[in-house]
């Protein structure tokens, strides 16, 4: 046993965890880049003038928000194989699909809240000034929405950092899985706790970024 422990130095552990951290960052980045715009699409569909579309979106949002993300990862990974007999769904792709859909739904609800908080008077002012619908949205409504949704978005993005650890359930070699492997192979426990440093560092940077963005948008009120 003592032989095993001496086999891995702190440097080795750090290097291996950095490898896992790469996967963590990849899941995080891909989810953000895809879910931010997809969330806007979902949001538009939720506010669609056609009632059936709204109804479908409501059920969809209910299912995604009402089931664990872990379960959604399993579904995306296993169901295509079971139903369509497609063998060997790519693990990383499955995780990304599950994360993007899940986060897009949460983002869409944040967007929706932000858009609905804009007073009707803003739209009416645009109308009497002759602005088109898209000018109204992009020049008047959206900038105000961005400011309003900053706090809930920063919350959600922090949650995403930590949720990436769920990818370990289908053996993606992200931080937690990597740490567990080291723990199991070398009989030491500290690498598991060590992962916290990586999550904390990432969330720390994000906190600073969001604080900067909120400051930038602080030049006006309301």
């Amino acid at each position, binding site marked *: 046993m003592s032989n095993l422990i001496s086999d891995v130095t702190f440097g080795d552990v750090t290097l291996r965890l950095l490898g896992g951290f790469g996967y963590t960052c990849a899941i995080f980045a891909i989810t953000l880049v895809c879910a931010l715009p997809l969330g806007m699409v979902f949001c538009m569909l939720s506010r669609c003038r056609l009632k059936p579309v709204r109804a479908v979106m409501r059920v969809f949002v209910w299912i995604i928000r009402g089931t664990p993300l872990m379960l959604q990862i399993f579904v995306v990974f296993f169901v295509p194989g079971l139903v369509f007999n497609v063998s060997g769904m790519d693990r990383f792709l499955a995780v990304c699909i599950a994360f993007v859909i899940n986060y897009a739904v949460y983002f869409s609800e944040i967007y929706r809240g932000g858009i609905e908080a804009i007073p009707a*008077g803003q739209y009416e002012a645009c*109308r*009497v*000034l*002759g602005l088109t619908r898209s000018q109204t949205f992009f*020049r008047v409504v959206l900038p105000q929405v961005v400011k309003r949704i900053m706090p809930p978005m920063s919350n959600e993005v922090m949650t995403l950092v930590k949720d990436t650890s769920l990818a370990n359930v289908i053996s993606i070699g992200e931080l937690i899985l990597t740490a567990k492997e080291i723990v199991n192979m070398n009989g030491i426990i500290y690498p598991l706790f060590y992962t916290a440093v990586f999550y904390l560092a990432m969330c720390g940077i994000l906190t600073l970024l969001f604080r900067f963005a909120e400051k930038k948008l602080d030049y*006006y*009120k309301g």
Partner: protein
Amino acid sequence: MPILEVINLKKRFGQLEVLRGVDLSMEKGEVLAVIGSSGGGKTTLLRCLTFLERCDSGRIIVGGDEIVSEAEFPVKTKKGEPAGTEIRSVYPNDETLRIKGLKMGLVFQDFNLFPQYSVLGNLTLAPMLVQKKSRAEAEAIADEMLAKVGLSDKRSAYPYQLSGGQKQRVAIARALCMNPSILCFDEPTSALDPELTLEVLKVIASLKTQGVTMLIVTHEIDFAREVADTVVFLDKGLVLERGPAKELIDHPKTERAREFLNKIVSRAAGKDGE
């Protein structure tokens, strides 16, 4: 030729008939005040005239251009059998209405300035986006209009840095920048305290001397008496009385108008007594 003609305007919300056939006409340069008790249809009338609301029937003619016309439509019973015809308003398509609607400017009760833009940004947004003016051109007009409302020094301020009266004056300047044929006001001083009310009313009075055609929905009876040429008393969705401002306010002919004006005068007297 009148600059605004409104013929037999009707509007209902469900079972509630808010406008029951309003006729109105204004000459260029005229200042018309619409008075009447709450729920009488004043705001709905203004919203129909600025195309924020669509009337059910009636015509709206601005500067000789019949923007809202009327036509006969066949009516069917619930079972789908023909049941004669009814007259309904006909609107142009959204794009045409958007452009023609620019003839009507509107100043809101609660300003509705765009908080993320400076005063100058508020004033130049629509001229640049809608009238396709260059920034320099739009800013020149904006500066001219800011001077008219006495706020040249606030051109780089943001709305949250302004008092209510200043906000409303910016809103007036913003509407003027689009050069509307008629500038409408929806109770422009209702959200302001008496002191700030005065500065806004002064601006409106000065616009009159510059020949701006204005339609003002207001509770400020004294102001209507001083500044308006004509006063219309709207009650339960009908124009009950119309006449020269001083004459109508000092000597109303109808019982309802007398009742309404007495109530307002006694309330003002009560305030003085405090």
